[in-house]
């Protein structure tokens, strides 16, 4: 009487990895338990998952989005409390914070991976144009200017059509350097800083300058367009998340490097967005809870961490156990953990609980600012008003 566990996920991208390496590894070690990975299209994942949970037809294991999306499921009794899982000991509090109740008393998902923001660049292009990797704002724009003057390459590959690129790879990528990572983020949550304060407006001011370095018609450029532009070698710099590594490795036929978001002045402390992005939890209504827990324990193990991080370079393990990674680009990204302070995206925890939704508004504002449709100041004022309209500490 084999038990079959079904995993709900938005990671279509990982289907082969799960099927070819992760699941066989688990099944070999745990005879009697079968696992099925059933991803759905990422855009529909939340809606579909919620519907299925409400109706009771969801799978046993639920891939968890960070923070509120999963918290709401836990509060609604859809996710089981996993605090007593022994594997939880393998994760730091920071790693678990994205899948805990606000008071930290219960953890309901086993953290799997985080992603790091930065910039990926075309090493060949840099060499050709004789460019150095920039470390400060000034150098950054100098490099962009040079590429633009030369004209062979589009300085930076990003579009505003899908909006989230602008927010995630733009604002959240460069922002921590201005609001000083966790310090600013927590101050915002406590109501000690406002979005109209300088540290929060400054990244918009930076973004406002990006427009002129993006490709012709970037307003209609979609995310896949940006990826293709870069991997086809037509753009020199790509504001990135570490998740791109796998795809880019497969597609680009030039050498790539990466650099962290530039700081305002040389010598400033640097901050990176090391965002806890993906975890896995247990459907509270699962009839196979026991087997599922076995599986979750395994996900929390060092074996899984190494398997996953190496299969998916760019998704960095949150496990306390150190993981050896083979991919040079991934190594580059993860090396920033050593030099810079880590933080997570500013809008994810608590602040996107109300209407208007701060995250959605940030997408919109970032895209607007790049397109020049809104000034940084106006955008910040609008966001602040929106937030203050429902978030008490900000009122």
């Amino acid at each position: 009487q084999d038990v079959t566990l079904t995993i709900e996920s938005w990671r279509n991208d990982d289907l082969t990895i799960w099927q070819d390496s992760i699941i066989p590894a688990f099944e070999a070690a745990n005879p009697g338990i079968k696992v099925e990975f059933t991803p759905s299209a990422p855009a529909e994942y939340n809606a579909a998952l919620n519907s299925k949970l409400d109706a009771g037809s969801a799978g046993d294991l639920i891939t968890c989005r960070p923070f509120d999306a999963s918290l709401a499921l836990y509060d609604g009794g859809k996710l089981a409390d996993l605090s007593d899982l022994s594997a939880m000991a393998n994760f730091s509090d920071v790693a678990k914070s994205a899948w805990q109740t606000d008071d930290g008393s219960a953890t309901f998902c086993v953290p799997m991976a985080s992603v790091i923001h930065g910039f990926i660049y075309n090493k060949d292009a840099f060499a050709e144009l004789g460019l150095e990797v920039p470390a400060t704002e000034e150098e950054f724009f100098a490099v962009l200017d040079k590429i633009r003057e030369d004209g062979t390459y589009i300085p930076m590959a990003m579009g505003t059509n899908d909006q989230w690129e602008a927010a995630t790879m733009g604002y959240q990528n460069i922002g921590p350097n201005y609001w000083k990572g966790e310090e600013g983020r927590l101050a915002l949550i406590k109501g000690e800083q406002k979005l109209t304060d300088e540290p929060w407006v400054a990244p918009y001011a930076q973004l406002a300058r990006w427009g002129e370095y993006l490709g012709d018609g970037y307003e209609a450029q979609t995310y896949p367009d940006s990826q293709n532009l870069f991997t086809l070698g037509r753009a020199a710099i790509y504001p990135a998340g570490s998740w791109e590594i796998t795809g880019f490795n497969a597609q680009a036929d030039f050498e790539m490097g990466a650099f962290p978001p530039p700081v305002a002045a040389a010598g400033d402390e640097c901050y990176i967005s090391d965002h806890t992005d993906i975890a896995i939890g247990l459907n509270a209504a699962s009839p196979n809870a026991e087997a599922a827990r076995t599986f979750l324990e395994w996900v929390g193990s060092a074996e899984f961490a190494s398997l996953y991080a190496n299969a998916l370079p760019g998704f960095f393990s949150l496990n306390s156990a150190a993981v050896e990674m083979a991919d040079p680009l991934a190594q580059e990204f993860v090396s920033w953990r050593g030099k810079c302070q880590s933080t997570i995206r500013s809008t994810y925890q608590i602040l996107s609980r109300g209407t208007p939704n701060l995250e959605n508004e940030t997408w919109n504002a970032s895209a607007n600012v790049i397109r020049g449709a809104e000034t940084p100041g106006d955008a910040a004022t609008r966001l602040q008003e929106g937030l203050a309209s429902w978030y008490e500490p900000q009122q």
Partner: protein
Amino acid sequence: MSKARTNPLNSFAAHAALIAYTIIALFPVVVILINSFKTRKAIFREPLALPSPESFSLIGYQTVMKQGDFFLYFQNSFVVTVASLFFILLFGAMAAFALSEYRFPGNTLMGLYLALGIMIPIRIGTVAILELMVQTGLVNTLMALILVYTAQGLPLAVFILSEFMRQVSDDLKNAGRIDGMSEYAIFFKLVLPLVRPAMATVAVFNMIPIWNDLWFPLILAPGESTKTLTLGSQVFIGQFVTDWNAVLSALSLAILPVLVLYVIFSRQLIRGITSGAVK
């Protein structure tokens, strides 16, 4: 031979206009098709170029065939589409017959009631539908999809078919009654064969949204054994990485069956709407 009626200039202009629009109509489809036979790089380097020996690649089709059981998805889509059409046509025709043939109290109200459904997106009833399917144990069966599509297609079907049925001669039905046919026999043996063209119209209008639907397969029947083709193709659209070769190939393949169905129905369709029901 000179023509007193046909003006060659007019006919030339007509063909010019039609050819122009046909090009507009087909151009994007052609773009999809030619690109499904190219390498990823070739797609984005020169999206308009025909596949050349260097750029020709069947990688997309290979991926599609490798990933998942595509023939099963195909079969599922086909079963769902055909079965839904069958029930829409059968139930819709029956209701349309009752509404158009008999005078009974509440006839008009019933007609209105059956039309309400086209005014609200059925998608928002998803949770309640899913609950219903869970309770009846139909989740992850093709039956769940068939039921939803049937319900969704009924309003328009009743609307169109009852218009058509009003045109079936009363004498004919009465002749049947005198010949001793029951009301059921009259419906199945006389009326149904006569409104076949109208049924084709309804079938074409319903077939497309059913075949292409992504939402309900995702919610009601995402299981491997019940996946539809459209849902199956979604595998290639990832969070960050989309396998365009595979998507294009899968979608190109998915056009074929609907095209075949359309061609099958379209002869009837033209005859059907020609007889003036959807006026």
